[in-house]
């Protein structure tokens, strides 16, 4: 066959007129996806790539292809471990071992934290001396390092070969048509649903389309009016060789990979060459439209011209670490690229159906180390509505509109790029893109010295410097922390505010809540079918309820107010609110509509033993315990302002959430402070609301204790009965109730904080729970327990940890240990169900102890 133009050579094949699903992209993600879809029974899969196979020119083709399995994120670690398993099954994985070396003491501490994650995810690893490193990497200058994190299961993969094998598996099942050198030029959307993919070879009708195009994904999404908020960004890499020390050993890799963490570089053997890659240079961002075509490219569209000046500092640092290898006679820089990869504003992948277009899915912004796992998870999600590995952090529906803007994506990715190998504190705040969503009472908060943390754009006060005086009042009851890491992004004022709220009252800005209404004649049916709790309740009732997926894992936990027979209002956390909104909308039957109200209402919490007295000064409404019982809501007047008041609490106190129109929020805030002054009410930050208040009460948080891998039973949140009405996950939930739990969520307190060095240390979350003498624990799922939430419990004078323990360890009084920075601290199990450590019978919420509020 001869054709006049290479681009038209292949499409002589017939292009199918229809497909069950069109997968755009033949990188590691698209290839893995077609394999898993075929395995799950999908047929008529059409896979398109504008490039030739097996390397169509995307990021997979120039990847360094190594895998370090330990990440601080459990979701990414799960995806990586699953991917490693798949690569091994395909026979394309070579184990090399890998080191993360430390040049500084600060990094050694981070590597100790790395050990926590390794233990928590069950990945074999150890901290080792420089001698251990040079024994395996003899050309490394051991005087440059203090120690290293050694992970023997690190390895490299052949991701292009894996892709070919994935495609061949789907082809062998007769499930797949592969169209290479065919370019997508348009997508047709009708009534909000994808209908058609237009290509250079003709149109393909399809109800389901997946964009798995890596750096090109934003361009493709735009064709359908959707958005995939990633940016192509440069990662520089050079290859130096031939290096005699490497050349004398056979095969692609026989020396461990070295990540030189403090210089943000890695050194990875590739045959006789050493690849040196960097995350240290300035952020160099592109737009998807600016990427050259295959014809315009020197090497490939994602291997852009090397900008040597940007790399020069890394050259010196790499040389310093491995002078004998990189300075070997004849070792030249034979290859150097500005390789493009995909970065997202929060570093997570972009998976799932786009919120803008039904049937249009994203599987983008994925590293080689997660590719096969992501393919499997997305295929399962497309098939069953959920995946075995929980990927909610990667849900593309998580973003608010401002987070999808080009400016936001570029700003956040620029800031994050140099943190790829950075030491990132769990509480770390962003510098850029701040001040974008301001609560109506923002000016008053500023005046009160609020320390703002950002959540999905909202500036939320975590504590108020105006409360500093309380520190003197409470002394050591605020549980001060002396270690810099433990107290970074933290203040003892949080604990002082907590005590003031428990003794008097606190006023909390909750503007960041996502709020949406479910309305219409089928509203009850919509809510009832989505949530676990009974939703067929009287108007004015408030429900706190889990939301499950079909396999009985948590999708969310949230509160629902029934405002009228055809009107429910859902209130949920800001972080995951947009994904919750999509979930409700996706499950709403005809006759029910889901309407976002997030920007319409501000929420202000008023809690504490004096809350009723304070609110009573502002309203004539009956707010007595009988007149306004717990878990009820109604509209009340605060002078000339009408607010929706809901008697509920996430901090375990008497009080209300007050929903006011956004434009009246500042006034309500001021009114509450004026009315609260006689009782000593103080503004209270999210440090109390999100951590100390909830932990004392054993309240679970989605994304920490609750996620798709956890069940109501294991979380200890089961109710005596399950409603008869059908809801998503009901069958699975009934089965879970009938079976013995494999893990039990427990609350523990730390018995002794004293470190070997003598100072006191306070865990921040993510640490492994071990036996008292450091032995490993394993639950019925094969998982190892780790701290899901950690924080002060000032009313108890204790530091509280939550973790899922093996059932036989989940006994009150059981003595265990937590490993923090590679030291053991004794802990004791205090609760093995939802029973709070503080006020276990919930007297305070009922408002029955307001006469003797002093604990």
């Amino acid at each position, binding site marked *: *066959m*001869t*054709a*006049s*133009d*290479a681009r038209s*050579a292949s499409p002589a094949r017939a292009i199918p007129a229809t497909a069950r699903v069109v997968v755009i992209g033949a990188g590691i993600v698209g290839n893995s996806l077609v394999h898993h879809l075929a395995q799950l029974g999908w047929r008529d899969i059409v896979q398109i790539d504008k490039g030739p196979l097996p390397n169509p020119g995307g990021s997979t083709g120039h990847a360094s292809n190594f895998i370090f399995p330990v990440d601080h994120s459990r979701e990414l670690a799960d995806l990586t471990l699953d991917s490693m398993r798949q690569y091994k099954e395909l026979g394309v994985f070579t184990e090399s071992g890998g080191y993360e070396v430390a040049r500084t003491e600060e990094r050694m501490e981070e590597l100790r934290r790395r050990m926590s994650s390794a233990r928590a995810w069950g990945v074999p690893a150890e901290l080792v001396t420089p001698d251990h490193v040079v024994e395996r990497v003899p050309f490394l200058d051991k005087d440059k390092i203090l120690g290293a994190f050694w992970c023997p299961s690190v390895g490299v993969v052949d991701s292009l070969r894996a892709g070919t094998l994935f495609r061949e598996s789907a082809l062998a099942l007769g499930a797949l048509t592969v169209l290479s050198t065919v370019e997508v030029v348009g997508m047709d959307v009708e009534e909000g649903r994808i209908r058609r993919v237009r290509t250079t070879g003709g149109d393909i009708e399809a109800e389901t389309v997946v964009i798995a195009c890596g750096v090109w994904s934003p361009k493709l999404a735009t064709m359908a009016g959707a958005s995939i908020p990633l940016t192509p960004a440069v990662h520089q890499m050079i290859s*130096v060789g031939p290096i005699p020390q490497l050349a004398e050993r056979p095969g692609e890799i026989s020396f461990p990979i070295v990540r030189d963490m403090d210089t943000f570089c890695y050194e990875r053997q590739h045959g006789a060459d050493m690849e040196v890659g960097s995350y240290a240079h300035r952020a160099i961002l592109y737009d998807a439209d*600016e990427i*050259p*075509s295959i*014809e*315009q*490219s*020197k*090497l490939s569209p994602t291997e*852009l*011209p*090397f*900008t*040597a*000046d940007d790399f*020069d500092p890394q*050259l*010196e640092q*790499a*040389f310093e670490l491995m002078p004998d290898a*990189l*300075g070997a006679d004849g*070792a*030249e*820089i*034979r290859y150097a690229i500005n390789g493009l990869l995909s970065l997202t504003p929060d570093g997570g992948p972009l998976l799932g159906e786009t919120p803008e277009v039904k049937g249009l899915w994203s599987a983008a912004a994925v590293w080689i180390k997660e590719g096969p796992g992501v393919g499997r998870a997305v295929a399962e999600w497309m098939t069953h509505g959920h995946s075995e590995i929980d990927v909610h952090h990667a849900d593309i529906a998580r973003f608010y509109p401002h987070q999808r803007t080009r400016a936001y994506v570029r700003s956040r990715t620029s800031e994050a790029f140099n943190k790829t190998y950075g030491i990132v504190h769990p509480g770390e705040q962003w510098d850029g893109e701040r001040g974008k969503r301001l609560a109506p009472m923002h000016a008053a908060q500023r005046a009160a010295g609020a320390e703002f943390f950002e959540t999905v754009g909202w500036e939320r006060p975590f504590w108020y410097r105006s409360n500093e005086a309380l520190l003197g009042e409470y002394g050591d009851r605020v549980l001060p922390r002396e270690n810099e890491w433990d107290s970074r992004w933290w203040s003892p004022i949080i604990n002082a505010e907590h005590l003031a709220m428990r003794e008097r009252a606190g006023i909390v800005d909750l503007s960041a809540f996502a709020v949406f209404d479910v309305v219409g004649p089928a509203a009850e049916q919509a809510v009832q079918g989505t949530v676990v709790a009974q939703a067929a309740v009287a108007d004015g009732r408030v429900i706190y309820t889990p939301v499950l997926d079909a396999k009985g894992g948590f999708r969310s936990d949230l509160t629902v107010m029934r405002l009228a027979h055809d009107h429910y209002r859902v209130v949920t956390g800001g972080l995951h609110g947009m994904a919750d909104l999509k979930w409700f909308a996706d499950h709403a039957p005809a006759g029910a509509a889901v309407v976002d109200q997030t920007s319409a209402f501000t929420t202000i919490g008023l809690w504490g033993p004096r809350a009723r007295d304070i609110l009573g000064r502002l309203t004539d409404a009956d707010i007595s315990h009988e007149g306004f019982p717990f878990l009820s809501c109604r509209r009340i007047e605060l002078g000339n302002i009408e607010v929706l008041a809901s008697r509920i609490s996430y901090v375990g106190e008497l009080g209300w959430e007050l929903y006011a129109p956004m434009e009246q929020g500042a006034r309500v805030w001021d009114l509450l402070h004026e009315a609260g002054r006689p009782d000593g009410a103080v503004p209270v930050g999210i440090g109390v609301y999100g951590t100390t208040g909830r932990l004392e009460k054993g309240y679970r948080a989605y994304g920490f204790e609750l996620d798709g891998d956890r069940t109501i039973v294991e979380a200890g949140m089961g109710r005596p009965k399950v409603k008869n009405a059908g809801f998503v996950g009901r069958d699975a939930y009934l089965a879970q109730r009938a079976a013995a739990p494999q893990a039990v969520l427990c609350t523990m307190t730390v018995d002794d904080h004293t470190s070997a060095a003598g100072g006191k240390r306070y865990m921040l979350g993510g640490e492994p729970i071990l036996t008292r003498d450091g032995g490993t624990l394993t639950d019925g799922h094969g998982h190892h327990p780790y701290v899901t939430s950690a924080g002060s419990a000032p009313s108890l004078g204790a530091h509280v940890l939550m973790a899922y323990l093996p059932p036989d360890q989940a006994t009150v009084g059981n003595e265990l240990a937590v490993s923090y920075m590679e030291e053991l601290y004794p802990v004791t199990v205090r609760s093995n169900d939802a029973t709070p450590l503080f006020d276990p019978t919930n007297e305070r919420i009922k408002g029955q102890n307001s006469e003797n509020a002093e604990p």
Partner: protein
Amino acid sequence: MTNVLVCIKRVPDAAGEVTLTADAQAVDARFVGFTISAHENCAVELAVRIASQEGSGTATGGTATVLTLGTDDAVEQLRTALGLGCSAAVLIEADPAGYGPADVAREIAAVVERGAYDLVLLGNDAADTGDFQVGIRLAHALGRPVVNGASTVEVSQEEGTADTAIARVAGPDGVETYQVPMPAVVTVLEGGVEPRYPTISGRMKAKKVKIETVAPQREPSGSGRVRLLLPPAQPSAVEVLGEGPDAAKAVVDLLEKLGVAR
């Protein structure tokens, strides 16, 4: 001991499809970046070999200085040549767009006249403008002998005689060997030597070299460029040699025919 001056030009890397800037006055290097053209890369390689202290016969223990006429951006190419083994660099700082071959030759001549360069090497022609003129105009201005299109250049140092440059030019019927007395000018055609890649230590040394910047002698008279035009696209033929393992023999045959496998 021979002191060599090697002249290079910052040009777009023409490895991909060539595109022009919107005003059609230059090649758009957005996707491909800038480089030293292939002829000049070979000239740099020859200069470094001649100047080196030791090595295959031709080493004279002299110096290799790299020169370009361009803006500050062209420092990138000077540093590349320094990383390959040149030990000094001269930037004639000017916007090269207005400079025709006569202007460039005049400016290089001024640098050569005040330095002590025994041998000036240039590329046979620039990869972007392809004027084929600077070398010969330079030789004329300097009153030196010139060899054009040499694949290799060596320096013959025989006791008692003046040093000579031996340049070999591959012609259709064989190799022509020119022996010219130095000082001399030679333009180099790619193919005779394999240019080296930089080493890390070379690149690190290159960073430390101070680049001598000189101002041009006078305003350029230019070559009166109207605009660049792209030639019509060459049709490319694709032949499918077969599919699967059966295609292997055809691939081997082709590789042998192309001379990349034996």
